[in-house]
């Protein structure tokens, strides 16, 4: 349930401490449309009608004739009727302590709601709560370990001055809630100013050819293989699967690799749980499933929470090189660029929190990763050989299909490669 509009008892005059609810025109659970007259209140000055500003379901916080203090909620408009709650007289031990007549319905802070929305967490998970703050949602998202540490010694950063703008010169459009949440998430570590980056290139030409022949769902992406190898290395390089908190390093016990995707449905980080112990085939399949559900808006909260390390792949955009930003509660993120078609190389960048690890460690990690990745092309080498630069058909395959072999050509980049007869003729 999300709150769409919250109506507070308004302060109309300085003298009023309270307002009276003189008439209620709607009931809890009722669906109202924007501009419906909801209720009427009386201040010391006047009668005031209050209208809905959006469509939604009503949840009343007052009764007719009530005297409500200024600033207290009168009514909420939500996007759905509340889910069924546990029996208030249920045998939950916490319930037993409650004074009679008090049944808990959790109240959500705005930040908690933003996180819930961002990560698609079901509100029913908080049924036993009195209040739900951001920390409660974060706990469910798997960052609970850091909470206690943070709480024992809160770090307070002085407020930043508001930037002054000349509205004559610029148009100011406020950020969306999602963007603001994203900023908060990313500022967590990157605003320390202590992040750095190391890059390495891997020979990838043969690697892609191997992939193309394999049974992967991702014949043109290094992602499954990179996830597979990275997650195994993270067991060894624990600092890269950790985060900085309160002058300490919190090491994640699990290796859950998040894969950042942004394909029309907004930036999401999909989680591959226990990636370090999952076979390659299964990783491949899980990632495919996740992306499938991402595209169809069917992601569960758990699908986008709890990652301990992130891989961001911008290969599809042909980028040569980029600097990814480390996510909250993590110490490193791996960026994957597109293959340089001339050099046949892919650049891997690893941004990291220098408070947790250092360039040398990251260098060693990347070198080891490179070795592991390149070992595949050696393995696939026997089957290698020349291929059609367009359809990637190998010479052996062409022979099996009784083709007439490959023709050498000068492609548009000025490289020399091969092309099969079918492609030469303009495709089958």
């Amino acid at each position, binding site marked *: 349930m999300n709150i769409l509009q*919250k109506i507070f008892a308004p302060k109309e005059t*300085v003298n009023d*401490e309270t307002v009276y609810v003189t008439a209620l025109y709607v009931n809890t659970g009722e669906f109202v449309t924007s501009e419906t007259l909801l209720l009427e209140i009386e201040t010391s000055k006047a009668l005031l009608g209050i209208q809905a500003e959006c469509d939604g379901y009503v949840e009343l*916080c*007052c009764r007719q004739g009530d005297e*409500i*203090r*200024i*600033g*207290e*909620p009168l009514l909420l408009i939500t996007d759905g009727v509340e889910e069924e709650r546990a029996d208030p007289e249920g045998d939950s031990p*916490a319930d037993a302590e*409650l*004074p009679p007549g*008090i049944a*808990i*319905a*959790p*109240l*959500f*802070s*705005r*930040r*908690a709601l933003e996180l819930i929305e961002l990560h698609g967490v079901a509100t029913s998970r908080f049924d*036993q*709560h*009195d*209040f739900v*703050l*951001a*920390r*409660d949602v974060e706990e469910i998202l798997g960052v609970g370990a850091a909470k206690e540490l943070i*709480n*024992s*010694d*809160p770090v*307070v*950063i*002085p*407020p*930043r001055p508001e930037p002054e703008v000349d509205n004559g010169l610029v148009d100011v459009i406020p950020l969306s809630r999602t963007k603001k949440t994203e900023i908060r998430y990313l500022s967590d570590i990157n605003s320390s100013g202590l992040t750095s980056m190391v890059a390495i290139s891997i020979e990838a030409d043969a690697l892609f050819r191997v992939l193309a022949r394999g049974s992967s769902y991702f014949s043109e992406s290094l992602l499954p293989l990179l996830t597979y190898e990275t997650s195994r290395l993270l067991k060894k390089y624990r600092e890269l699967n950790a985060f900085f908190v309160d002058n300490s390093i919190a090491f994640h016990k699990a290796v859950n690799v998040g894969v950042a995707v942004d394909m029309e449905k907004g930036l999401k980080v999909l989680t591959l749980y226990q990636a370090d112990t999952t076979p390659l085939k299964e990783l491949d399949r899980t990632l495919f499933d996740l992306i499938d559900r991402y595209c169809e808006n069917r992601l569960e909260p758990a699908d986008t929470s709890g990652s301990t390390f992130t891989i961001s792949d911008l290969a599809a955009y042909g980028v040569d090189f980029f600097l990814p930003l480390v996510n909250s509660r993590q110490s490193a993120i791996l960026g994957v660029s597109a293959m340089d078609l001339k050099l046949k190389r892919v650049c891997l960048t690893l941004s990291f929190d220098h408070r947790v690890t250092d360039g040398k460690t990251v260098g060693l990690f990347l070198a080891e990763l490179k070795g592991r990745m390149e070992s595949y092309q050696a393995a696939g080498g026997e089957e290698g050989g020349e291929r059609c630069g367009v359809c990637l058909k190998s010479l052996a395959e062409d022979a099996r299909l009784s083709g007439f072999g490959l023709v050498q050509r000068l492609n548009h980049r000025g490289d020399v490669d091969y092309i099969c007869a079918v492609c030469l003729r303009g495709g089958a």
Partner: protein
Amino acid sequence: MVDLELMKEAILIRRVEESFLELFSQGKLNGTVHTCIGQEFSAVAFAGQVRKEDSIFSNHRCHGHFISFTKDHEGLIAEIMGKEIGICGGVGSSQHLCRNNFFSNGIQGGIVPVAAGLALAGKMKGTGAICLLFIGDGTLGEGVVYETLNIVSKWELPLLIVCENNRYAQSTEQALNLAGSIPDRARAFGIEVRESSTWDMDGLIADAGESIRRVRATSRPLFHLVETYRLAPHSKGDDTRHPDEIEEYRRRDPINRFKDENNSLYDEIVAGIDGRLKKFIDSILFADELSLENYHESAEPAKLVSWSDVEFSDMRQVDLLNRFFASLLERDRSALLLGEDILAPYGGAFKVMKELSTRYPDQVRTTPISEQAITGISNGLALGGMKPYLEIMFGDFITLCLDQIINHASKFHHMYNRQVFCPIVIRTPMGGGRGYGPTHSQTLDKFLIGIDNVTVVALNLLIDPADIYEQVHAEEHPVIVIENKLDYGRKFSRPPLKNYRIEKSSQLFPLTRMRPLRSRPTATIVTYGAPVTMIVDTLSELILEYDILPELLVVSRIHPLDEETLRIITDSVEESGVLVVVEEGSAFAGFGSEVIATVHGRTAKSFVSRRIASLPLPIASSRTLESEILIGRNQIISTFRDLQQ
């Protein structure tokens, strides 16, 4: 010829005081004394003739009065020598004496309304006792004297005021400071004035006896002016008067004349007195002084605190107060309500006393606009076994009461070495928000907290005022109750905020807390008094909009802060890591500073702290300016928002 016994008493007084001066020159006394050498017969005539059940109030020059009334010159000597066996354990010494019904204090004029209060207590109880009050002519410069003369005349109190006119105040001759005539001052209030002098001893003795008789018989005040002269310095070695003048009075001095006329008898009397004095002084020269443990009761050890739900009544606070006082007057005849404009039908500026004077006419007394005097009178009532509840119409006016609070109510118990209690209660509404302007809106609480032995409590809308006042009534020391002008009209109702538990502690003055039903709070807000309402109104916004889940702790006794309260606050801060203290006064050197400093001293954990308080400016009447000066929702929200970033 004067009675020989009276002459002997006068000589005893003189020899005792002369021995004090000697002891001083030998370095055996601490502090100072003011002797009445030359004025002894005033003491003998008045203090010597009242009854044991009567009371005497005196000033810095009180040894003679004391000896004539109590006949306990040895207790006095021990006191002035600073010994534990002295009448006030050596705490009070020369100008702070107390024994039976004898009281003296070192604030010129301050004791005058206290004497009136004790006289009122006696009159209400119908004991037939009177009060005898000594003041010097210089003290006629104090305003409180006239506030009191007005009241004792109007209320017909049995107070005999003896003004010892020795024509000097410390170093200053009377003519320099005194306008008009002394007798006319008292007559202006309709008080009978009689005059005598210490040079006509027989006349003085007779006149004093007659004045005492009249006051007792009529139960009305009387002003007796006694011409006299002090032969010794004001205290020690500080005499600027012309030696010839002193010499002239020395010749006229009754004891000196007795000595000249009865030389051998005088020597015999003096030798007897001196021998006894020397023996006594030698015997106590090395006696113990009072120890700190015996002087000061250490704070009670902390008790285990339990919590119970607050039961709201949906009644307006002013009605709850009115109901409490009605029940109090009904059940306790010693309870007395005093204040300006408190009679029916007006019932006080804020109507707390509504109708009470109709139902309990003897126990509700309206007073002139004389804050200092009515506070002093309340002190006297409290010394006399009554339980006065004094209403000060606006909190700002409490400044006029401060001498009576600080130098009298606060000090009596300890300076008289715990022989007396002064359970006065002063109630006053503080706070702004009604546009009353600079002198009717301020929160002056910070000037009231930290006074020794004075408890300060503040009402708030999360506690039944009767819960507070029941304990106030049981207190044996002074209590100031801070009420609030805006809260009077508000209801004692459960705030509509969901999922919070509102509980009060089992402490004598309960602390109220609002705590989330289940979740761990992320901030601790400590406050007292009126800001409670505003904070409670802000809670849902703090939670919903700013992701802050505060625990609210509302202290009812703001001075002294007891062990339990500090423990509750510290525990909460250790849990939340954030301490925000909210008060309506200004921040500097206020309650908030005290709480934060004390909690810092009690925990090893680091925490973030902020004070939310009003601006240090006179409170403006204009609406916008007033609300900008006073604390408000915005300040609470912005403080938390800044903390969060």
